[in-house]
Structures are given as structure tokens and as C-alpha cells.
């Protein structure tokens, strides 16, 4: 109640300009930060935006990798099989 009355009565001192350190005005004492430091507090948002194309779970990457392995190895096997079949042919007996 006493604090409320003081506020209503405008008795609390206010720091103006670059005031730092310990101040004593009447019966009130406390620490007052420099105003410029007070005004440049870092405000973190909850989540940074997700980069475009980014797949955090890695599911797309995994599927792509498996598909590439399967296709690549299949191509390699098919190519080898093709050339082997062509080079090994003679007149069918």
C-alpha cells in the first residue's frame, strides 16, 4: 500500500540521460542501468525460420540417396551384363 501511494504521489526518482551507478534521492535507493544498454537487449524469438529447401528430418535426403544407389548400381549391372552378352555371342549351336 505504501509503495502504491508513492507511485501515485510521483515521489519515485527517474533516471534521465546517461545515469549509471548508485543514486540516492531522499529515502529511495537502487541500481539504474545505462539507458543505451537497456535499449539494446537481445530479443530471441522462439524459432529461427527454417531455411528454404531444408529438410531437417532428412527423409528426403535418405529417399533420394537410396533411389540413387539403386538406380546407379542397377545401371552399372545392366551395362556390364549388356556388354558381356554382346562380346560372348557366337553362332548359336
Amino acid at each position, binding site marked *: 500500500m505504501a509503495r502504491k501511494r508513492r507511485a501515485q504521489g510521483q515521489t519515485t526518482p527517474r533516471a534521465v540521460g546517461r545515469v549509471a551507478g548508485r543514486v540516492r534521492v531522499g529515502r529511495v535507493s537502487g541500481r539504474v542501468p545505462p539507458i543505451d544498454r537497456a*535499449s*539494446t*537487449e*537481445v*530479443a*530471441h*524469438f522462439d524459432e*529461427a*525460420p*527454417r*531455411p*528454404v*529447401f*531444408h*529438410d*531437417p528430418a*532428412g527423409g*528426403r*535426403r535418405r529417399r*533420394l*540417396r537410396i533411389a*540413387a*544407389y539403386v*538406380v*546407379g*548400381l542397377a*545401371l*552399372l549391372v545392366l*551395362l556390364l*551384363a*549388356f556388354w558381356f*552378352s*554382346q*562380346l*560372348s*555371342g*557366337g*553362332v*548359336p*549351336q
Partner: protein
Amino acid sequence: MSLYHGARDTGPEMTTGSIPALRRRRSILRGVVVFALLLLLVNMLLVEAYLRFDFAPDSIPQEEQSTDAVPTAVQHGGPVLDLSGAEPLTYRIPARTIVITFDDGPDRRWTPQVLDVLRRHGAHATFFVLGTQVLRNPGLSRRIVAEGNDIGVHTFTHPRMGAVPSWLRRLEYAATQGAIAYRTGRSTTLYRPPYSSTPDALDDSDMAALRQAGLQGYLTVLNDLDSQDWQRPGAEAIARHATPANGAGAVVLMHDAGGDRSQTVAALDLLIPRLQQRGYRFLTVSEALAGRIPPAGRPAGFLAQSRGWALVWMVLIADLTLRALWVLLFAAGALVLARTVLLIVVAVRHARQRRGPPWSWGPPVTEPVSIIVPAFNEAATIGPAVRSLASSAHPGVEVVVVDDNSTDGTGDVVRRLALDNVRVIRQPSGGKATALNTGVAFARHDLIVMVDADTVVEPDAIHRLVRPFADPQVGGVSGNVKVGNRRGLLGTWQHIEYVVGFNLDRRLYDTFGCIPTIPGALGAFRRRALTDAGGLRLDTLAEDTDLTIAVQRAGWRVVFVDDARAWTEAPTGMRQLWRQRYRWSFGTMQALWKHRRAVTDGGPSGRFGRRTLLLVVPFTVFLPLLAPLFDIMAVYGLFFLDSKAAALGWLSMLVVQTVTAAVAFRLDHEPLRPLWTLPLQQVFYRQLMYLVLLHSALTAVAGRRLQWQKMRRTGEVRILRG
């Protein structure tokens, strides 16, 4: 009260890829995939090259060779040879029997006419076909067999068999056999070597190939009489050459492909009835020698047909691959030509208009300007940069350097300059976009210029840069950035690239109102435009492109000013260049993808989106992705197609690029001397650029996260007077 947000340091991504053994295995597998794809492309191109190998016709005269290795029995024997055993066996055609043989077919035009004549006269013949022709004319091979004729192997591509290695000969026989088996359902034991003649004309170089064919199960069929139809002496002469003396039997050589065979067809129509009247029969080889040699044609087995099936599909896919490459090459060529014409016409007009006396942006702009310089570990370059900015010839310039938690004393370097109109703000590590947002928040004025910490500006650059703000619709202005360190080839190539990019591309985009990027090195914005665009976003690596697009989508105009010049430091090493371009191209893809819905928007956003889709995307994404084709097809053409045409095509592209670059250099008042490096740039730098683009595209598709990578600075930038 100014608030800004710093990006949290999320730390390295924890994935299974960080396990060393797994990483090694994956890199091996990745190598296998890349190898397989390259192998496939090379395979298709080589198959095509092999199929299109131009053969010399049978009539080409051959050099005299020794005949010591040719057995006497072969030299003086019949034209049908069995060389499968230790002792050669030869067969002669019985009396009053003609075996007409046709080489080099089947041919779409002449073979049907030959078959018609044979059928009309109830005659049979033997066709020695080329594998490539069988693949191209499937119906004709079937008709040859269906009408009772023999079909034999005349190799796949008609090489001189004595001159090719044994494995290639084997391939020639097998591929042709496969093609015949797949197309006709029959196999054959008959073989005629290309460039062959009568048995007494065989020499040592032929014998190895004939023995190999014999060991594989083939009967070699040479000839007794050459009709000489390849000389086109007239139908009567051909018929005369094909007529045996004294009622003897003979194998007669004719051709149903490889040129105009109208005389052959006419001669056949004369020869058959004439000899039939004299009691001659026209039979195939196997009919003529029935009981003495095994049947020439049998149903082909599953393996032979499968081999043929594989061959047919391989050729089909190779054909399609090459056709697709040609289509893409022509598309790329058309894009290059369209771009060149458009660039030159529009850029020259743009320059003339802007430099002409009636041009004005409006009343002089004298409002004060805040220049924001984001910096992370830029101690080597920031001193000259800030000094040049602080002493700009514009009233009321303030410079706000945002030190992004540098560890090399960047902020101290600036403070030591002791310049009155320069402030340093240090922020927790947050990246370039965050630093720029911080700078915007701390800037006192409404005209905001953004400059990189490695960039030095000319004294009047800032004043010139903000002149377009006299037009209230202009929300952003791009300056003209030049390379300030041009030492070495890499520096020169980047210099050329910058001059062309700024003086041609940006003028074109400016004319059509779709500049995709105000470069981070030198750009200006109205504060309101920045607010409308939502500030700089953290979700792309090309924050400058993202911002420029957002500003235009918000309805602001963005223009280019060529006389506001800044000199920036270009990467001096390959690794640095790769990293920079990788980030640029990936970031550009991110920004274009992020704003893709602009294409369907209404109002200014839609207008910008559609113009970008038409002008920027084809030239900055599609064209660079198609660029490798110029090199692939040039190399392919040089070795396997018309080498003169290929060289000419490649040189014309060089000429087009040189002309384009020369125009850009003239517009920028730059000396043309660096252009001598353009031919070298075509065989090295361009390839690097499209590899970077490919890498970026793969990164985007895979959904990987690409982080900012710090460039190594040398501080060698200086303003060069042209």
C-alpha cells in the same frame, strides 16, 4: 527502442552422416552412382558413334598384301569356306546354279525392289546384311527370310576386319547375329567379310579374321563373279558381268544398298529370265549346297534373341539420348542467341537513354543517408571500405558498422579510424541478414545504403546511387560493382563476368522491371520499402536477392545506376570461388523458390513474378544448367561426327560470347584487353560454374542445409581508373 533478433547457433546438424565409417561407405557409393551415370552417358554416346561410323564401300581399292599364309586349297578352291577345322574345306556351286548375293543392306529403298524382282521370277538369293541396317529396317529383314532367301552376317558396321582387334571382330559378329535373331527369329551360319572378293584375292591380313569366324561356327561366302554394280556401268553390263561362262555355277556379288542401285535392280530383271531360259536355277547358298553344308538358318534360341533384344533397346536408348541431347543443345543455342540479341539491343538502348541529356530522375536528392556495413572478421578490408564511405560526397552521410561478433578486432580497426560520422555496433553472432537488420534499426535516416565490408566506393558513388529516390516509386537501387583485385586469370575472368552481369543483364532486367538482385556490395533502399518487404529474412543464403524480390513484390520499383561504382574483392583461390558461387547459386535458387507464388499473384507482385519467370529463370537457371551440352557435344562432334562442323559450332559460341562481352566493356568504358582470356575461360571457368550450379541443385533437392562460409580476405582492393 531498437530490438533485433539474433539467430541461435543451432550447432552442427546431428545426422548419421557424421559417423566416419558410414560417411566413408556413403562416399564410395556416391562415387559408384556418379561413375554409373557418367558411364551410361559415355556408353550411349559411344554406341551412337559406333552406329554412325561411316564405312568405306566395298569398292575401295586395297593395298597389295602378302599371301603366304593363305592355304593353297583356299586360293584355288570354291567361294564357300569352312575354316573351323585344321584343314580348310571349300565348296563350289554346282553347274547351272547361280547364287546371287547382296551386300550392305537391307536398304529401305532398294531392298524391296530387289525382293520384288526375285519374287516375280521365282528366284532366291542370299543377303549379307549389316547389323546397323537390320536395326534400322526391321521389316525388311523379316521379309527377306519370309520369302525363302538366306540371310548372312556382313558385320555390324562394315569395318576392314583384318585391321580391327579380335574382341571387336567378335563383337561385330555377335551384334549382327543378335540383330538378325531378334528381327527375324532365325540364326545364321553364313558370313561374308566386308571388302571381300574372290578366294584368290585373299591375303594374309584376311586369314586371321576368317579363321576366327570359322572357329565361331561361320561359313565364309566369297564370290566367283563380281557384277561390278558399284561402278554403275549400266544394267546390261552388270548382267553380263554376272553371267558365268559355259554353264558353270557361281556365287555372284551384287549390292542392295550403299548408293543408287537402280541399275542393279534393272540388271537383275534382265539376268534372271535370261539365265532361267538357259536352264539356270537361282538358289540361296544353303539350297545350292544342300546336304554338303549344314542348314544356314535355324530358329534362333532364347539367348540369341535376348542378346538381340538387348542390342535393339540399347541402340534405341542411345538414339533417344543423342536426339535429346541435340534438342537440348538447340534449345540452349536458341536461348543463347535470343539472350545475346536481347541483351545487346536493350542494354545499348538503356545506356543511351540514361546517359542522354533529357534523362533525369527528378530533383536532386540531398536527404541524409545511413550506410550500413555488416562485418564479420573483416579487419583486413574494413578500414579502406569505411574510410571511402565516410568521405562520400553526399550531405549527411552516417556509417553504421555492424560487427557480427568478429574475433579479429574488426570493430577496433573501425574505431581507430576515429571518424566522426561512423558508429560501430557489436551484435551477438547472427549472420549477415541479422547484422543488416540491426543496422537498419540503428540507422538514423530514411535512405539506407548497404555496402559490404570488402568494398570500396568512389567518392560520388553514394550521391549517384540515391539520385533515383527522387522518383517516389523507387524503393531500391542497384549500384555498379566492379572487381577491385584483377590479378591472375581468376581475377580477370571474374572481372569479365561482373562487367557483363552488371552492364548487360542488369540493364535488361531494369528495362523490364525485374532486377532479381540488388548486390550486397552496393545497394540502396528506402526505409519504407524495407519495412514493406518485412526486412531481411534469415531463411535464404542470398538475403540480397530475397530482399530485392520482396521489395518489388511489395510494389516498389528497383532500378540500376551504372555510374554509382563500387570496387569489391573477388575470391583469389579456387576453393574460395567455389564456396562463394555455391552460396550464390544455392541462395538464388532458395529466393526464387521462396517467391514462386509471385507468378500467380495479381498486382505488382504478379507482374514481377511473371517477368522474372520469363527473363530471369531461363537465363540464370536453365541456360547455365544446359551449358555443359556445348562442351559435351563439341568434344563428341570433334571425335565422332563432323569435326569441322563441331569446331565451327564451338567457335561460333566463343564469338557470340566475345561480342557480348565487348559490348558490355564498351558500355562500362573498360579497356578490351582482358577479353583475350575468353577462349581459356570457355574451357575451364564455365565448367566450374556449371558444376557449382549442379552441386547447388543437388543440395536443394536433397534438402541439405548450407551454412554461410567465410571468405579469406586479402585487402587488395583498389579503385582502378578505366
